[in-house]
């Protein structure tokens, strides 16, 4: 099999669009075992109600012998080194029933490396949220890890990966496709990547280890979110001791906003928007809140005004335990604390990027943030 030539010309980073991040140093991040809880909580928040619980990945990492885990800053690595983003795709429910093996991403990574003729690629995450925030860290020890990802939050579709949204040429996607099998798709349109990988996942039984390559560490600066592991750690630490009594302070410490507190009094499947559930929340201040959810929390509408909508990250906390809730844990009778965390700046840098992460991407109208 003829191997393709090295990746084609890269887009230079647009001037002034270098993403802001909380961590952009040239020193590696050394994660301690004690950080695991904060990391998990941080990734859960970035999950915006979706992306699965980080719990499973945390269990795997807890028993790993590689602590402390070193995660490099993109700036300290050779920009020409190939990079591969990994993560689970498919149903996170099935993932907890049919547990992954010791090397869930191996087949996909090796397929990409074989296809591109590279080796020892640096590993990052496809989405720094939920289960996938921690999943790539289990490769520590065998691979160099870099603090970057392709979404900066949870989003449901593969065509919402930053490297595909930006249209980088030569992106290669791979996913386990049934016992011993692996599907590789190269250079396809983002929506076709989504379809092919989704099909491979179905062949694999509902979830699969996926990997995306064909870009370099240098590409991460302009075409990916950087520093999201550090962001998750910071968020997790800041909210670790969160108490109900001082929610504005919590929101401040997370760099976010307190959207409201209240009780879920109704949940309805929206007839005109398939797959969308809206929760009616009676706010403690009397406002009428509508929390609109798909696989993630998509928007919050307060008294008829959209106050937060994807790509802004909406976080629902259980008001009693302050646990981060997934969409399916939000139910009638539950008391919620609703927060928003700023969207990764990468998504806001251009209208075309933003559009790919907004509700309209799924055909849902009327949920754009105003102002």
């Amino acid at each position: 099999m003829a191997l393709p030539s090295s990746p084609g010309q890269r887009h230079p980073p647009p001037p002034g669009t270098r993403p802001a991040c909380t961590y952009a140093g040239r020193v590696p991040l050394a994660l301690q075992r004690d950080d695991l809880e904060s990391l998990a909580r941080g990734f859960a928040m970035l999950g915006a109600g979706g992306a699965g619980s980080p719990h499973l990945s945390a269990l795997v990492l807890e028993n790993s012998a590689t602590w402390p885990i070193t995660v490099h800053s993109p700036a300290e690595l050779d920009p020409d080194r190939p990079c591969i983003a990994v993560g689970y795709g498919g149903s996170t429910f099935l993932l907890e029933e049919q547990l992954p093996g010791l090397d869930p991403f191996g087949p996909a990574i090796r397929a990409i490396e074989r296809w591109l003729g590279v080796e020892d690629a640096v590993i990052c995450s496809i989405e720094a949220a939920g289960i996938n925030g921690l999943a790539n860290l289990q490769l520590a020890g065998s691979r160099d890890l870099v603090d970057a990802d392709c979404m900066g939050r949870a989003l449901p579709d593969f065509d919402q990966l930053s490297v595909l949204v930006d249209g980088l040429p030569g992106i290669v996607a791979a996913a386990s496709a049934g016992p011993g099998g692996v599907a590789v798709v190269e250079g396809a349109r983002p929506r076709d990547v989504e379809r092919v990988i989704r099909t491979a996942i179905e062949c694999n039984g509902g979830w699969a280890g996926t990997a995306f390559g064909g870009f370099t560490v240098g590409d991460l600066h302009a075409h990916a979110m950087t520093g999201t592991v550090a962001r998750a750690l910071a968020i997790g630490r800041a909210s670790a001791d969160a108490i109900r009594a001082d929610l504005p302070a919590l929101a401040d410490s997370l760099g976010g906003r307190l959207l409201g507190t209240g009780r879920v009094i109704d949940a309805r499947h929206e007839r005109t928007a398939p797959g969308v559930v809206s929760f009616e929340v009676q706010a403690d201040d009397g406002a009428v809140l509508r929390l609109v959810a798909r696989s993630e929390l998509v928007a919050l509408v307060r008294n008829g005004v959209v106050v937060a909508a994807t790509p802004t990250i909406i976080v629902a906390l259980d008001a009693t335990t302050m646990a981060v809730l997934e969409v399916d844990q939000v139910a009638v009778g539950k008391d919620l604390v609703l927060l928003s965390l700023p969207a990764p700046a990468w998504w806001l840098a251009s209208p075309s990027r933003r559009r790919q992460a907004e509700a309209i991407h799924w055909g849902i109208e009327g949920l754009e943030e105003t102002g």
Partner: protein
Amino acid sequence: MSAELSLEALLEHPDTGGLTVLHGTSAVWTQAVVEIGEDALPAEVDDGLAVLIDPAPGASWQVDALLRRVHDRGFTGIALTGEAPGPGSRALAERLGLTLLHTDHPTRLARACWQLLEARDALALWMVQRIARSIEYRADDLGDLLRHINANVGHGIALIDQEGILQGAGEPIPESLLKQITFDRWLDIAESPDGLVASVPVESRTRQALRVALHGKDASTAYRNALSTAVEVVMPMVAARLLIDEVEAVSDASRSSGLLGDLLESGGNVDAELEQRMKARGWRTNGYHVGFRIVGRGRLDPLELLRLVSSLLIRIPVDSHATTRGGGVTGWLTFPEPPSPAVVAARVRDLHELHRSAQASFTVATGVGSLASGPTGLSATLGEARDAARLAADSARSGWFVHVDSLGLEQLLLAWTGGDTFASAAASLLAPLSEVERQTLAAYLDEESSIVATAERLGLHRNTVSTRVQRIQGLVGIDLHDPEARLALQLACRVVL
């Protein structure tokens, strides 16, 4: 613009296309803006009702956003069509102070708003047209006509006199308004917090001080004008209907009375033609019948009596018929299966109750026949009822009520002899006789004029009896060999002794 549109006025309007209030109890708007979609609404209004023709958006947050934007434009009310907004949107409307309405036909709501706000005469004209349309439909009676009018104009309508509502359709007039109606003027408009009533007098041959009234919950000027015009238009229809009903009642009673006459004349030999006519009226000759007759003890209008009796008969749980005959009412109860004596007794008690109720309005006497079956039986029980009624008219002691039970003729006679007229006649007939002579006469008549048997019964010598009988014959001046005279004397003895 000085005119105002209130939520109450809208709810009162008969055609708002199925308006329902999702949130809000009372509201007043100075304008109503009707547009296809929210985009076309004016950017700023002082206070108004927005009526949107396009269906409301499907998703809950889109409805919320719509309410919010309409509120931000200054509207205090919105009427939506399509899928009705859910509880969350209603809660939002409450929070925003927005009256939230839903209608199935927004254009009809728009027309109602226009009529109430800007074209009050149009509302009156519209109502008159709807009343005129009521004439198109056949009405069986006044009640039917009132129902038609109510269905067409949507307002409660009633025929009233000073005692209260006689007949009506739709929502009844509240007591507070009834009290305020003035009966001595042409058009009267009574108002109270419950709304308004417009009424005008109705002429009737038989009843006095009648008025026809239309009422509504909203007392705004538009309704005031419309209802007073409408009630004037309704009046001649009601008056004509009253007259027709009276004429129809008379002619119907005369037809059924004629039929009853034919039945009684036939003596139970119902021929095919007569049977056919009876069937057409729902009169069945099969089964078991108890006849009754109610007659006036003075002058009365049999038709009025029939009206009352018919209304009372409804309460008796068995098939019944009644019609006028002569100076009274004749009727019967029909049982499809042979009833037990207890059931018959219960129904006769019902008839007695009916008699007592009728006594409240008329001076009547009632006779009830015995249970009899088939066409012959019907004729017979009606005959008994007739005789019993005749007796009852003479029997204050029985409360002007006589029932001929299974004992038949004997009891009938006894009952008759119990009558006041006969009692006094009997007393005067036997007046010349001493007590002993009366007893002797009674025994002699009972023993079929046998001197020997009478002597044995009284323990006397037969010569004594013979002498007494001759003496009695002389005193009374009656030939005891005449069977009729003997019967009269025997009955007189029964009454007096």
